[in-house]
């Protein structure tokens, strides 16, 4: 009952997500490790849902990883952000959509800090003019790209080619959802459902036929930790945190994991491989790992995109067990091909974790 009551309280954190007309900015990490996810996102919103998403080649990193690894001062990151806002202003947009969770947290923090300290906003405006000859308006609305897929989740469900249902048993797939820490831990009201009961991914899972798993370490960080991953000597931190999450979720036998931060799926995918190499331990069924996805990839699978067009061959943990459960048709022979079907060789097989 307490749980239901809390869920009700947090369900009041329903942010406003505009229908249309967004200025879209990319994520460094997503472009590096899950590039097809951004392609899929834009294809879904533009071509399947008919929305206007504008992109300019002139936007850059927001500087978030450098800022959170303490490499650049706060004024540096704020001016880079102000520059991105200026690009939005020049393009005539008011709604800002970003692909990265670190960026999303940082944009939110910056706008909140400027509200509290208007003199700082004035200073950043001055620096931006001096350095870039640009002026900006603060976005009227800030959305993370997962908010947008969440908003249109039921429309996606209506167009679904596949559902998050095990075609052999007819039962909903059991799904772990992992929310990037910077989505709502600092400013709960800026995320769908707040920080304790975020609903942004749970809403997608429910709408597409799956069942959300609640497990003890559900809200624990994936372990990125910025400098704790960037420096080799510190990576035990990152690995240990992922390990803690997997140990906690394993008894619940998840079929898949879905994430909204670009970094988390990388760590949860790759550290499973490392755990298997170090300890011979795997968390999925029959020697496989638990496949980890971005929300764009899952939306793409539901809508019937080809798994290799979605870039799922760039994962370390094999996705095929999940594709089979969903009844998705795919050609295993095409998994590792390059452009125009060119043969480019295959990755080596890991020692323990099974790959297809």
């Amino acid at each position, binding site marked *: 009952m307490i749980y239901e009551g809390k869920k009700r309280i947090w369900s009041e954190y329903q942010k406003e997500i505009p229908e249309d007309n967004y200025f879209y900015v990319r994520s*460094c990490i997503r472009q590096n490790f899950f590039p097809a996810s951004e392609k899929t996102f834009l294809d879904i919103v533009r071509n399947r849902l008919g929305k206007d998403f504008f*992109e300019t080649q002139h936007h850059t990193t927001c500087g978030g990883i450098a800022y959170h690894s303490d490499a*650049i001062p706060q004024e540096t990151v704020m001016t880079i952000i102000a520059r991105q806002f200026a690009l939005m202003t020049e393009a005539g947009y008011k709604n800002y959509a970003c692909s990265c969770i670190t960026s999303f947290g940082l944009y939110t923090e910056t706008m909140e800090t400027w509200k509290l300290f208007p003199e700082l906003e004035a200073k950043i405006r001055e620096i931006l003019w001096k350095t870039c000859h640009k002026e900006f308006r603060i976005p009227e609305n800030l959305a993370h790209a997962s908010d947008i897929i969440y908003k249109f989740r039921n429309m996606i469900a209506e167009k679904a080619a596949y559902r998050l249902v095990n075609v052999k048993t007819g039962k909903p797939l059991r799904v772990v959802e992992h929310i990037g820490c910077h989505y709502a831990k600092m400013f709960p009201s800026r995320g769908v459902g707040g920080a304790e009961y975020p609903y942004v991914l749970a809403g997608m899972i429910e709408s597409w036929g799956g069942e959300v798993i609640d497990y003890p370490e559900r809200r624990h960080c994936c372990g*990125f930790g910025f400098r704790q991953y960037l420096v080799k000597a510190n990576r035990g931190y990152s690995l240990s945190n992922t390990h*803690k999450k997997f140990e906690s979720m394993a008894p619940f036998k998840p079929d898949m994991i879905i994430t909204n931060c670009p970094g988390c799926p990388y760590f949860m995918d790759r550290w499973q491989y490392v755990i298997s190499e170090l300890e011979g331990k795997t968390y999925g069924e029959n020697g496989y790992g638990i496949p980890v996805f971005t929300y764009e990839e899952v939306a793409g699978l539901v809508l019937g995109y080809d798994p290799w067009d979605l870039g799922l061959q*760039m994962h370390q943990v094999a996705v095929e067990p999940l594709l089979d459960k969903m009844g998705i048709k795919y050609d295993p022979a095409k998994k590792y091909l390059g452009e125009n079907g060119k043969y480019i060789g295959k990755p080596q097989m890991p020692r323990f974790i099974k790959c297809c």
Partner: protein
Amino acid sequence: MGKLYEKLMQDYRFKEGMKACINCGTCTAICPAAEFYKYDPRSIVDMVQSRDEEAIEKLLKSETIWYCGECMSCVTRCPRKNAPGLIVMALRSLSIDEGYFIHSEKGRQQYVINKEMYSNILNYGYCVYPRTFKYEDHPEYGTTGQWIEQNLDEIHKRVGSNLDGDGPGILRKIPDEDLMQLRNIFEQTGAFKRMDTLKRLSKERADSLGLTEEEYSEQIFNTISEGHFN
């Protein structure tokens, strides 16, 4: 008010994150770093709120402030609306800018972090860039990562990236005029100054150890001494 506390008070993150701490320990209970490292955000906040200059200087020279992962899990839970994660960010900035970072093993790592970040941002416009993200430095990238590195252009083309290409798109080449503006921003906002401090003190230390810049970087990137862990 002491000199260091006064400097902290100028940091907006400190102004936002430091209210009265009641020492409840909730932040430490939720903190992923506290489980892994000998780390206790509660005692950091408490030490800082004492305004004891000597204690703050000791903290700035310590390993402790470098253990946080900046996940901000503590911010959600603190009953007094403190933000230990933001306080740590302010402490780290001060430690670097005052040169105290050189006294701790974890602090000294900042030099390699800055080198990598500045080079990626200023040369390419990205914090992470695929041609500088090397399997050799990241064996956890896995066998798939190795395969991606060996076939980088082909795989990115296959999945629809515009790697180093003109116009918008995934991993496009960011135009020089934009990179120049980033450089101007770094100059105006003290980022280059921060790098200069890191470079100067790291060089002094490398010289004193008889190491080249490359050997020194290698050492701080890879070394883990005993005593950090719980």
